[in-house]
């Protein structure tokens, strides 16, 4: 989904590229959840997914590059009670949708540290779409807010 053509842009925010800046993004989303009256499950799904996606961007998107980070987040209201949160960054190309599901380990000794963020996004979201547009990653998270 390159452009939520049938949607209405509700709000945007620019955030920094440090771990602590994630709080700005989740706080912004929480305010939107209150204003828009999203069900608790929708709020949880979008907040968790945005945090997981943004953690990847700030942790790896600009490592080893000298580019000035630009990270923008948009919230769109879509038809049929759905909500899209789109994360746009100018980090290195990274497609979370290409990440394989981690194998469920048999024991704590075998458990791999990491790799669970995308698994959680896939579970809690209706759709998760990625595209590379020019120098930007665009990741669109869609959840149902109809309740």
């Amino acid at each position: 989904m390159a452009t939520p053509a049938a949607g209405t842009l509700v709000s945007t925010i620019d955030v920094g590229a440090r771990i602590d800046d994630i709080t700005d993004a989740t706080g912004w989303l929480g305010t939107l959840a209150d204003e828009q009256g999203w069900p608790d499950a929708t709020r949880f799904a979008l907040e968790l997914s945005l945090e997981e996606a943004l953690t990847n961007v700030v942790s790896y998107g600009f490592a080893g590059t000298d580019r000035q980070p630009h990270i923008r987040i948009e919230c769109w209201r879509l038809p049929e009670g759905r909500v899209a949160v789109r994360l746009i960054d100018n980090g290195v190309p990274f497609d979370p949708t290409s990440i394989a599901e981690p194998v469920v380990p048999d024991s704590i000794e075998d458990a791999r540290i990491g790799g669970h963020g995308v698994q959680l996004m896939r579970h809690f979201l209706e759709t998760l779409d990625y595209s590379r547009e020019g120098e930007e990653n665009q990741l669109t998270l869609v959840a149902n807010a109809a309740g």
Partner: protein
Amino acid sequence: MHIEREQVGSDVVLKVAGRLDTPNAKPFEASLMEVVSMTDGGIVVNLAGVDYVSSSGLRALLVAGKAMRGAKRKLALSSLQPQIREVFDISGFSTLFEIN
């Protein structure tokens, strides 16, 4: 995030409140690992006051869980709220930890 520590028999009970998100994950992991290194009994992490957990929070628990298993000590979790339990179930962590 807030953590209260209490000795119950041979176990240390950690009552965690707040969000186990990415910004809080490192301090949470540091608190857990301090208890792992400073005590020699079991550890119970009471999550009744936790209303949000992301994969970063899971990661902190896994780091502590591996250290405890290596030392043949018990690390149990208790009192998970339904949404938190769902995150544990989806990621397969429910089978890795004793959950009361």
